[in-house]
């Protein structure tokens, strides 16, 4: 296989006069090991590759993709994209990106230790993870999944408008789901550690998170319905940030699908809220040199001191809004670019989670939420999700609860943020995690 940049350049060289063409090509290597009861349950290794071709002719856009870099198939794929363009309706804002002079950040996102790690070492990590989880606590009765996985690869984007860019990234993680049991009650935990190279993985922490956080939920009961102050676990905060990111998409705003449309400059959150998308931070797992259209990734302030500063744009949504792209196009080879919200992060506060519990006095600590894909409407902002966690009583964590819901609206929740914790940490899902204190949340239970 020749390099992804050569393949992208080759596809662009097939363009006809008068058509804009963009080739997005990716190639990666992945390994996945699962351990179960002291043995390797499965070991998968693969090198997926593919290309997406976008053609814009007279404002009409067509797209086609193929899961291969075979030259004959790529030629057919371009023909398909061309044919598809004839059925799109003209859009004055459609088109591929143009070079904007912004230099991509210098980032080194594939550490040599990831490329060179032998398969045996990866297998050993998975086996060790399972062993350690079983040994951590006498209440561990089994481990549903103990996984080591990694992936690294290259992406290239080339266009007839002069874009020729690429990005490289890699990461690995270990994940464990221990089953714990006491007095007939069973819980499942999840612990994770992610890094750019296997040597930087923290197995002890993944195991401790997986086991201890499940153990403390044993014996949980349904809480009484009421309005409470909720303290969100960093992972829960990150899940909400991902949804908030979708409402700050310039495309959703332009098409009347965002509750923030037309509100730039307004106070949309409490003054402790400062939100940015910063894929130039090498600590972020979705950091990168360029976006899905080949433009430089950059730092985009979204909310400052509670005031709405701006939105995220790709090329088309930027043109529609009369703005420049913020380098926020997200995609894989099987889809056209869309506006993403990479590396979202809240500015950290100054106090530890324990100090926050003490301040709150009485409330709930939300350790996990479920049903986010069905329970949050990013257009209306209404949300209602399943919640599991611990009561906060007398300024400290107390007994566990389960089978509850927390509900509010995204808008109200942003205004009700009382404090952001100091425990900022990038998580593999994208946004950064941080403990968050939110007043006036509806807790639904018995």
């Amino acid at each position, binding site marked *: 296989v020749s390099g992804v940049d050569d393949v992208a350049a080759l596809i662009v060289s097939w363009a006809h006069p008068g058509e804009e063409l963009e080739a997005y090509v990716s190639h990666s290597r992945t390994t996945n090991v699962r351990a179960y009861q002291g043995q390797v349950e499965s*070991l998968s290794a693969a090198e997926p590759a593919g290309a997406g071709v976008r053609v814009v002719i007279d404002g009409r*856009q067509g797209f086609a993709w193929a899961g291969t870099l075979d030259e004959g198939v790529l030629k057919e794929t371009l023909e398909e994209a061309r044919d598809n363009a004839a*059925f799109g309706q003209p859009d004055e804002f459609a088109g591929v990106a143009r070079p904007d002079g912004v230099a991509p950040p210098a980032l080194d996102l594939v550490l040599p230790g990831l490329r060179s790690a032998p398969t045996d070492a990866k297998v050993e990590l998975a086996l060790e993870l399972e062993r350690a989880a079983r040994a951590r606590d006498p209440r561990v009765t089994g481990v549903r999944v103990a996984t080591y996985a990694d992936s690294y690869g290259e992406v290239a984007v080339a266009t007839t408008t002069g874009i020729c860019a690429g990005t490289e990234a890699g990461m690995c993680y270990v994940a464990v789901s221990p089953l714990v049991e006491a007095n007939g009650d069973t819980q*499942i935990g999840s612990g994770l550690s992610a890094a750019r190279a296997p040597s930087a993985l923290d197995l002890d922490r993944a195991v401790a998170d997986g086991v201890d956080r499940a153990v403390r939920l044993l014996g949980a009961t349904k809480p009484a319905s009421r309005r409470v102050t909720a303290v969100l676990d960093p992972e829960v905060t990150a899940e909400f940030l991902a949804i908030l990111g979708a409402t700050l998409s310039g495309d959703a705003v332009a098409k009347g699908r965002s509750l923030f449309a037309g509100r730039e400059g307004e106070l949309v959150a409490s003054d402790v809220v400062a939100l940015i998308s910063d894929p130039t931070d090498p600590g972020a797992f979705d950091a990168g040199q360029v976006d899905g259209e080949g433009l430089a990734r950059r730092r985009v302030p979204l909310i400052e001191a509670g005031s709405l500063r701006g939105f995220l744009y790709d090329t088309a949504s930027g043109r529609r809004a009369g703005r420049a792209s913020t380098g926020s196009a997200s995609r894989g080879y099987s889809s056209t670019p869309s506006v993403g919200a990479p590396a979202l992060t809240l500015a950290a506060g100054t106090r530890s989670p324990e100090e926050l519990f003490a301040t709150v006095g009485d409330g709930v600590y939300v350790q996990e939420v479920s049903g986010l894909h069905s*329970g949050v409407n990013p*257009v209306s902002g209404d949300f209602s999700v399943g919640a599991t966690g611990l009561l906060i009583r007398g300024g400290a964590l107390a007994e566990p609860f389960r089978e509850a819901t927390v509900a509010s609206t995204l808008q109200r929740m942003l205004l009700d943020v009382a404090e952001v914790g100091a425990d900022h940490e990038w998580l593999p899902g994208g946004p950064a995690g941080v403990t968050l204190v939110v007043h006036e949340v*509806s807790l639904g239970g018995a």
Partner: protein
Amino acid sequence: VLDPSLVTEVLQAALRTGGEFAEVFVEDARSSSARLDDGRVEEVTSGRSRGAGIRVVAGETTGFAHTADLSAAGLHAAAEAASAVARSGRPGTATVALAPWRDEGPDVRVLPEDVPKSAKVDLLTRADAAARGAGGGVRQVSATYADNRRRILVANSDGLMAGDDQVKSRFAVQAVASGDTGLQTGRESYGLARGFEFFGDFDVEQAGRVAAERALTKLRARPAPSGTLPVVIKRGGGGVLFHEACGHGLEADLVGKRASVFAGRLGEQVASTLVTLVDDGTVPREWGTYAVDDEGHPASRNVLIQDGVLTDYMYDFLRARSEGRAVSANGRRQSYRHLPMVRMTNTFLVNGTEDPDEIIRQTPHGVYVAQLGGGQVNTTTGDFVFGMTEAYLIEEGRVTEPLRDANLIGNGPEVLALIDVVGNDFAMGPPGTCGKDGQGVPVGDGQPTLRVQALTIGGTAA
């Protein structure tokens, strides 16, 4: 697709390091879709993915590799990678004799690939116009048409060879309405294992109107209650309840790892006697239907719960092998790049006897759910949630005011026991995509109108 003698050769090579079982899964998938948004057909897309996944099983260990290169060299390289984990076994030569298999082609009248793209695009513009015509509050409409054809061939070292040619068509409309209470959304989707003839029976304009009316209705909706109430679920609107409340917990891979509340409960009463639950991959043309699963076994109808008693779990090849029993043809994978695991097909509650209107009349105070959205379950505890996307209050036995979106939450075994009336009006629901361990597969669900005596509603009203 592939020459049987090459497949035989690759299977034999895969067993050379001592594996006990080898399988070649070949897939050729093509898809096309068109999307309308903001009054314009924004894009028409085509996709193509072709390749093979090879797995080798040695003891409790599975090795897996996949390739997009279907040449002899590409397949042999994948077989070698997949068999690398089997080095603990005794190297040797295996003989594989494949059963003959004949490709019968897809069971549809009009292949989507034979339909002009203009006809697909036309469906979108008709739905858009109908949705926008439904009322002045409709501010935005998007619509998606999608079809795909997936041809698979599975061959394994036990001599099995089988294949399938799966065609699916899907259509969805989403409308956004704006009013004093902000923005609200409504959605309607349909999908079946059918070709383009589907659109001869299915009215896309009606879909557009339904999506718009759902959004408009919600503009005048009040916040959903917070607390525990009786819930009546309309036919075809809540099959996801069973998918989440017990379907996942009856998957043998989770049961085998004791990660299910239903583990060790065969023969026990796990639900109200009104509950008979079936998983059936043979229902003609349904979204979760196939001729053979992704391990080559003919789809079957499996009764999981009969009159409230747990009768069986769902199995794939590996799980069935370790328990020394027959597969239930629930071995599925997202694509040739994935390992198969136990998955549902079409999962549904069979008909009861009650008149659905009578169920509402007999409910003094509660919630009527016309449509549930997606859900999620923790199979270990049985706790699940799912979203209500169209719901109303029931007051004095009548359906009254609309409610805003909220999640319902419950515990699988507890909720199954609390089903106290089941209607006689069975219907399948909209097409679903079920996610498990990072893989998505198409699934169907369905149920007649039914009542759960008490469910927790996660609204914001006191």
